[in-house]
């Protein structure tokens, strides 16, 4: 397709199939067209028709009519099998820019079972799924992350040829879904953090005695395991996390303002590098970006939150 036409087509598609968090394939969204085999089949029916006419054989004629009727019935069946299928956002798997992430798409079927549905998007081999009525089915689609930031989900082609393979019902689905691409870590000698007792290779691990025990709170997943009150757990009190009031001097703040003289992306990459470095050391650290401040903490969840913030910069929601 020539450029302008392609653009028009895209615009038309975008208008007709606007992105949404959840999409149910209604008849407005479903396109249907014979496949190559469908045309072959119609050709066979036509040949039989000609044969029936020529041999003046009404039975062969009936056979050709039967094939044609079956084709028409197949239109309905293909359509029925396809329409009513719902897709919605699942979770997403972030990754570093330049690498790849993954988006989870959840297919659900409220009205009927959908057989042999194929999902594909550019640069991704198709996946075939069956969605049983009343059930959900998750599909992971890989997504390459060319640059940092929010990588929007590409248009997904959903299609099904069930039951006869003579017709293909398809739709393009643009889910309002994105994958976060974290900055690519770039090593730097200078830790852009302040507040710590030493500027880098800080080991504020909660054992140094420089923190004041404040109390316990219920364990929530993502808390650093080092802070769990294991003694209490052993006594059967359940999982609690020790809460420390840390002296201000013990907290590390990774600050945007401390990475100076570098382009924006570079800055983020350095921050990313140090986030990973500090996380490896189990050191609690905070992050300060223009427009967002994340209080110091440690653990997987915190690391993800920091990385996500770096990915989202400069627009947080």
């Amino acid at each position, binding site marked *: 397709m020539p450029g302008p036409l392609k653009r028009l087509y895209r615009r038309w598609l975008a208008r007709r199939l606007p992105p949404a968090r959840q999409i149910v394939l209604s008849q407005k969204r479903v396109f249907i067209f014979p496949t190559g085999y469908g045309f072959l089949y119609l050709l066979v029916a036509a040949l039989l028709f000609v044969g029936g006419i020529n041999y003046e054989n009404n039975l062969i004629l009936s056979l050709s009519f039967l094939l044609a009727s079956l084709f028409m019935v197949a239109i309905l069946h293909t359509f029925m099998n396809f329409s009513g299928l719902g897709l919605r956002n699942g979770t997403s798997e972030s990754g570093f820019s330049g690498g790849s992430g993954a988006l989870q798409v959840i297919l659900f079927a409220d009205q009927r079972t959908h057989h042999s549905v194929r999902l594909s998007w550019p640069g991704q081999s198709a996946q075939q799924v069956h969605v049983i009525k009343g059930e959900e089915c998750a599909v992971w689609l890989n997504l390459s992350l060319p640059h940092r930031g929010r990588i929007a989900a590409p248009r997904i082609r959903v299609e099904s040829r069930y039951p006869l393979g003579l017709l293909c019902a398809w739709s393009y689905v643009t889910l309002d879904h994105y994958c976060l691409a974290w900055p690519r870590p770039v090593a730097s000698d200078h830790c852009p953090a302040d507040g710590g007792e030493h500027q880098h290779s800080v080991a504020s691990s909660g054992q140094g005695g420089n923190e004041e025990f404040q*109390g316990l*709170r219920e364990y929530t997943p993502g808390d650093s395991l080092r802070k769990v009150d294991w003694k209490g757990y052993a006594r059967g009190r359940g999982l609690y996390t020790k809460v420390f*009031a840390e002296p201000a001097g013990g907290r590390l703040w990774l600050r945007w303002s401390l990475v100076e003289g570098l382009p924006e992306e570079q800055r983020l990459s350095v921050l990313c590098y140090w986030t990973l470095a500090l996380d490896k050391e189990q050191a609690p650290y905070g992050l300060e970006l223009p427009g*967002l401040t994340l209080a110091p903490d440690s653990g997987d969840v915190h690391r993800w939150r920091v990385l996500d913030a770096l990915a*989202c910069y400069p627009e947080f929601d």
Partner: protein
Amino acid sequence: MQALDKALAQVGRVVLGKEEQLKLALACMLARGHLLIEDLPGMGKTTLAHALARVFQLDYRRVQFTSDMLPADILGVSVFDPETRQFSLREGPVFTQLLLADEINRATPKTQSALLEAMEERQVTLDGSTRPLPEPFFVVATQNPVDQAGTFVLPESQLDRFLMRISLGYPSPEVELDLLAGGDLREQVRELKAVINGEGLVKLGRMVETIRATRELLDYVQRLLEATREDDRFVAGLSPRAGLGLLRAARAWALIGGRDYVLPEDVQAVWPAVAEHRLTARQGGSVAAMTQSLLQSVPVVRRA
């Protein structure tokens, strides 16, 4: 509903410039729900609670929660009476009609959950004997904003027990001026006149149940709930209990508005107070803004 208007006017005398929040608090009471007020200290939380108690002639107790508070301190304990040689229950402060639980997030989770369980079940079980709490029974809990140090954040499951969460916020300059010019607030509260008594309040609460909600309205409520579940900006959608609460609050709101049927506006009015504290954002950001945006995006009347 003259009585309600009067009550509002009365409370409005001491809690200046917060009509909306007052109405919400009132609606919460009418809907027999508990109220959570989240604000910095000194914003008039206590005054509000106190005023409500006065206006409705309710038994009123205020408990300041601290970290070394134990469940027994709020529920009560069985004590051995040497004279009768029997254990008797010494009721805790929870046995009242209106309990102001100040700074509830300072207490340990254990104490918190003891109170919240009592709120939910409207009864207290101590040493095997169960005692009902008085009727009506309201809890107005206040909470400092989460970021404050030394607090135990109420877990989501507990937050669900509060029908509404409101925050009063800073007064406007004019109101603040009035406030500064006015006398002692405590004194004023003491001067408030009772409008209805507790029994009347219970009756009003029953009236709330009779407010009509048509199928179309229920549909709208359901769509709102559905939207929170489908919206992946939230960790989880609203529970069915929250939905029932929303409807009850909307009915109460309609009653305050003097109608015997619910309008979509009623639902929208109570929506932030009912929904916000029950929802958690997945990736940070303002839950308030997200909840509000749902009101914008969910059609009130079904579309084709």
